[in-house]
């Protein structure tokens, strides 16, 4: 019993120590910036990639902007909007975060937008792609301008549009022949999966495809034999969809080979987790995808450096986009310092409003962007970036032995499309 008492005493003491240390005012010229990500829970892997990318970006500038020392504050969203808001508010009030960047889930974005507005703390480069985020943002652009520079456009703009555009092109040019335009859509049963599925459906219908199936499965699903067998029986010629869950996606790709489905597989998000090839092996040959690539020299160097330092092959969206997002953020901070001579939440917000959201301040390859040519926001597109081949753009790629090559659009093509056999 004494042990129990001691335990509770220890807990109380630890708790009060935390409280008191936190009350100590931060030293001058320290700039605390928040990094929001899912560091625990089902998406913890993406959170880890965020964290490592931010660490690398900080090391590059020696954690200094002018005479400000940058201190990152990791905010664990725990993949849960309620918990995320708790951590978010605490980071701002207790830890003194003046601004921040990144985020993964749309539901977290929607909950934290309100807090960013309430505390007037600018937050940029959140990934939550769902249309709901855009809708909420547009319902009060002034208020929600604190949550700006969405770093992943609504899926319809890129993934669905690009893949269907590619298929239309391939069919027209005879590089791919199908018996019937019969498609099956799959997706994880989350905001992301459903939204992407909806958009793909729209794009396919517009392209004259018949949608034979639409299946949304749980994030934990790894057995797709029944689903794929069903597709095979019905003779679908295109299977497309997305999931952020690596076990699901790699399982699906592998099993799609195993059941002998001869359709073209559009597996959006296959390489979001660095180890994907360890999980699929050759089964991924011929699968197409629409996504960011470590294409440029700088990007490849980054991927190599990250692998050397942290021991895993980074994924382009989680590692690359978070790296770009954070560097963009640093650029905004520098601009703020240059313009106002100091960095405060209000100043950063002014820069975002006056220069970023109007398209004056962009983040380009010259600035060190590794995934996109240029991240640019305009009044029309905000909070989404400008999407085209010279700005934010995902090409269509095809996997071959663990590597991917751009096959579409033709202007960027690295390799010819190999149709499924």
């Amino acid at each position, binding site marked *: 019993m004494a042990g129990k008492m001691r335990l509770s005493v220890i807990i109380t003491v630890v708790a009060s120590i935390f409280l008191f240390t936190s009350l100590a005012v931060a030293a001058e010229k320290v700039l605390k910036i928040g990094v929001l990500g899912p*560091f625990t829970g089902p998406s913890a892997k993406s959170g880890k990639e965020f964290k490592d990318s931010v660490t690398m970006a900080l090391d590059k500038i020696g954690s200094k902007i002018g005479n400000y020392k940058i201190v990152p504050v990791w905010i664990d969203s725990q993949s849960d909007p*309620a918990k995320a808001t708790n951590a978010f508010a605490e980071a701002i009030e207790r830890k003194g975060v003046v601004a921040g960047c990144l985020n993964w889930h749309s539901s977290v974005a929607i909950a934290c937008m*309100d807090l960013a507005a309430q505390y007037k703390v600018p937050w940029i480069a959140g990934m939550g792609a769902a249309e*709901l985020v855009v809708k909420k943002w547009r319902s009060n652009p002034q208020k929600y301008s604190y949550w700006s520079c969405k770093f992943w456009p609504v899926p319809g703009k890129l993934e669905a549009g690009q893949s269907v555009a590619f298929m239309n092109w391939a069919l027209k040019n005879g590089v791919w022949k199908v018996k019937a335009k019969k498609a099956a859509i799959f997706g994880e049963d989350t905001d992301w999966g459903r939204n992407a599925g909806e958009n793909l459906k729209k794009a396919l219908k517009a392209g004259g495809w018949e949608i034979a199936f639409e299946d949304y499965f749980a994030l934990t699903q790894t057995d797709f034999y029944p689903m794929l067998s069903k597709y095979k029986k019905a003779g679908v010629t295109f299977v497309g969809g997305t999931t952020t869950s690596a076990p699901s996606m790699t399982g699906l790709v592998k099993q799609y080979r195993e059941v002998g489905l001869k359709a073209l597989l559009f597996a959006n998000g296959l390489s979001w987790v660095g180890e994907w090839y360890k999980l699929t092996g050759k089964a991924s040959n011929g699968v197409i995808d629409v996504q960011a690539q470590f294409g440029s020299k700088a990007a490849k160097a980054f991927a190599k450096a990250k692998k050397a330092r942290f021991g895993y092959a980074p994924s382009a969206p989680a590692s690359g986009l978070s790296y770009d997002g954070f560097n963009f953020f640093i650029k905004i901070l520098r601009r703020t310092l240059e313009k106002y001579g100091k960095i405060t939440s209000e100043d950063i917000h002014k820069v975002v409003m006056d220069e970023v959201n109007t398209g004056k301040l962009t983040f380009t390859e010259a600035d060190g962007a590794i995934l996109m040519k240029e991240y640019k926001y305009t009044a029309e597109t905000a909070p989404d970036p400008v999407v085209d081949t010279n700005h934010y753009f995902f090409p269509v790629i095809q996997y071959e032995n663990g590597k991917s090559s751009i096959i579409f659009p033709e202007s960027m093509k690295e390799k010819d499309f190999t149709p499924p056999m």
Partner: protein
Amino acid sequence: METGVSKHEMGFFSSVLDRLCLTPLGALLLVLLALLPLIPPFNQQYLLRWLTIVALSAASAIAFDLTAGFINIVNFGYAAILGLGAYTSAILAVRTGLSPWIGIFVGALASGLLGFLTGLLTLRLRGIFAAVMAWFIGLALMGLAIKMVWLTRGPLGLRVPRMFDTSSNEPYYYMMIVMLLVVYVICRWVTRSKMGLAFKAIGQNMEAARTSGVNPTYYRIVNFTLSCTIAGWLGGFYAHYMGILTPDLMHTSKTVEVLAVVYIGGRGSLWGGAFLAFPFLIAMELVRSGFSNLPGLHLVIYGVILILVMIYLPGGIASLYYRFLYKPWGKFWEFMVGYKEND
């Protein structure tokens, strides 16, 4: 739970307290809670936000304890039933524009109805079977919330109008504290009436209770209905406080969180979990934020504490209170106000 002192012997103050089922210590803590937003460091918004969520957990713990600690059935679908209340209120607000102030009560009714049905369905079942049944009802409910996209928007998340048109947390905090008190008083009042005895009798031995004239059917259904109604009511508050609802709210792990608080706090005491929630959950938050380099550490600690309590301290923190503090405090109060604690 007969009171040792008859009503007219007590002073007005004590009599009011007694009607509210509070001990002077409890009342003091309540006053402290009410004043907390004025005391640094708790005058910061994030701490108020934490406290609001913690108070919500505390209130959930009380309602959960009403079934777990009294009729000895662990409602493993508790989070889902709370979620049902949240969704009902939220959908009404979004679709029909119903005021959240009415909506949360409609949500409570919906959850209560489901609680009534669950109570009916688990009548023939005992112990682990009833827990598993409630679990599967919860899983089915969560599955429906995910799949009925046309109604709930599924995992896309349902945006919910907030209760107060302010970004400040104070109104929510005070509302939650009032709700906490109401939940406590209702549960306390019920459990110290004759019904509470019946609950305990059923929880300990259903057959014996039946033979001694207690009708388990009636009491079990009443218990389930009441507990679930409260859960739904709290769910409504959650919906209109967070402003977004996803089916994740109904996940089993959310039930586990409440369950851990109840068991560590001391089941069957009602106040144990509610009291513990404040220091414990806030300490956990601090561990999480203090050791952000070791994500998940706080959950390991959480689990280890639950295991240790289950093995070595089945009565939870409440039993420590009864063993070490209750009597000395009782004497202290007797001395100070001439009031004799009972209960």
